[in-house]
């Protein structure tokens, strides 16, 4: 009974199907345990959390400098900035927009810096569905390689006030 005290010396090794199940479950847990380090070294998608502390105002200045020197166009009133392949890109999140629109080349790797000027935000790339957290005071660096061309909406996926669902942006990936 689960509601009565067992007498002393109740510890016994499992037997029968119970033993078999625990063995199988343990085996599966070992597979699970090995999967993450395996992907860390061999996989292409990892969240290593590379980050630096940063003053929001300094970050905003850097974003503006990035936009000024890399602007290639404008969409819906937002500048489009294209960093050189292998270079640094800056994206600023704030209530309730992403700034600027980024333009990448397919297959090139960029160091994408994301931070927030006010409160916490999310960074979701649609429709491929990649998601990261954006915090004020932290420069979150994603070393990212777009593998397909097209226009990708970005969306805030962390609640950030009444206009949260309208906080969108865009990444353009050219061939």
């Amino acid at each position: 009974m689960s509601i009565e005290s067992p007498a002393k010396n109740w510890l016994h090794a499992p037997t029968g199907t119970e033993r078999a199940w625990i063995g199988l479950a343990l085996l599966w847990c070992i597979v699970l345990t090995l999967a993450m380090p395996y992907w860390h070294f061999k996989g292409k998608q990892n969240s290593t959390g590379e980050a630096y502390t940063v003053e929001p105002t300094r970050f905003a200045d850097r974003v503006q400098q990035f936009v000024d020197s890399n602007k290639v166009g404008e969409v819906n009133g937002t500048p489009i900035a294209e960093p050189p392949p292998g270079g640094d890109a800056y994206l600023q999140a704030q209530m309730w927009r992403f700034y600027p629109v980024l333009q990448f080349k397919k297959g090139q790797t960029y160091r994408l810096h994301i931070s927030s000027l006010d409160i916490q935000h999310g960074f979701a790339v649609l429709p491929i569905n990649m998601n990261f957290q954006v915090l004020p005071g932290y420069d979150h660096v994603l070393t990212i390689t777009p593998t397909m061309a097209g226009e990708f909406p970005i969306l805030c996926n962390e609640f950030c006030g009444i206009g949260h669902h309208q906080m969108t942006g865009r990444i353009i990936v050219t061939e």
Partner: protein
Amino acid sequence: MTKEEKSGDLIEKESEHRGDGLHHAPGTFTLTLILLVSFVVYYFANWKALADVWHVR
């Protein structure tokens, strides 16, 4: 550990002998195997989906 069981089947006898442990639950074992298979399928399907997105570090 004293137990008096109405049913005198062999497994129960043997389990008394060994203290705890030996029991006969093939239905549950089958259920848990189904769980494990679903788990494996779902887990690897997600790795597959992950492998399709942009590269990131």
